[in-house]
């Protein structure tokens, strides 16, 4: 008998109840995500980060124009997703990327293009959807609420520090944002390459979820 398509946890959830969970319904709501992207894009634009702003706004517009149809569930991949060959390939790619792009100074076009290429590639993969791990049983709101609180807190504290700066484009020692704090590490060649390496690995990890 053929195995029905989709992740095992989805089939179990569908069997348990027909209605999608509250958290899942929230995750499908483009309005909230579009609003976050729009607000972040506006702040980035007035903070002198035009490329960031364009990226955020463009994705926001895409989500607004082409809302999530949902229901597309890909087949679960049996066994471990990451085989040794895949891990070695990703590590080699991330190392090469970090060594090449890390040569260039921060806040220049070569680094910007170097970051945009994997960034946009990741967005294309995210748009199309990939075969992913089974994330397990459906989550209840109370199981993810603390994480939402952490990310909202860090976002609000960043925003507060940004607004307490002498100007939106003038850094403050007294009220440092995370990017100001990272200057001492990322301004050097080694720190910059290490940061780019970790950033690319994070992207690979996220796309695998």
């Amino acid at each position, binding site marked *: 008998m053929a195995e029905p398509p989709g992740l095992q946890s989805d089939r179990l959830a569908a069997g348990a109840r027909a209605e999608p969970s509250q958290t899942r319904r929230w995750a499908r709501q483009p309005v909230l995500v579009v609003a976050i992207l729009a607000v972040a894009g506006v702040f980035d634009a007035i903070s002198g980060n035009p490329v960031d702003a364009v*990226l955020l706004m463009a994705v926001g517009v895409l989500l607004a124009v082409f809302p999530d149809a949902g229901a597309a569930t890909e087949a679960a991949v049996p066994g471990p997703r990451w085989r040794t060959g895949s891990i070695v390939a990703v590590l080699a790619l991330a190392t090469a990327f970090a060594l090449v792009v890390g040569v260039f100074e921060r806040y220049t076009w070569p680094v910007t293009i170097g970051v945009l290429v994997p960034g946009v590639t990741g967005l294309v993969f*995210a748009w199309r959807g990939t075969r992913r791990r089974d994330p397990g049983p459906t989550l209840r709101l109370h199981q993810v609420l603390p994480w939402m609180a952490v990310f909202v807190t860090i976002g609000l504290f960043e925003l507060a520090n940004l607004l307490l700066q002498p100007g939106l484009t003038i850094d403050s020692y007294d009220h440092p944002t995370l990017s100001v704090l990272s200057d001492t590490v990322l301004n050097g060649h080694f720190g910059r390459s290490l940061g780019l390496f970790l950033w690319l690995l994070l992207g690979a990890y996220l796309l695998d979820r």
Partner: protein
Amino acid sequence: MTSHDVSLAIYGVIALAAIGLELVALSHPDRLASLGRTLGRAMRSRTGRLGIITGWAWLGLHFFGL
């Protein structure tokens, strides 16, 4: 204690809270979802995937790009 020190302390508290949450989630998965599981669930929808990957791309641009 300067404003700079207070800011660093607050960042530290937030980081410790995140580490604590992850430890609780790993020991009591029925009470709290781990960050990986939360992200995995969020990325089941295209909206969630695009939102999270946009956040990742933005991080790269924010810390390294123009």
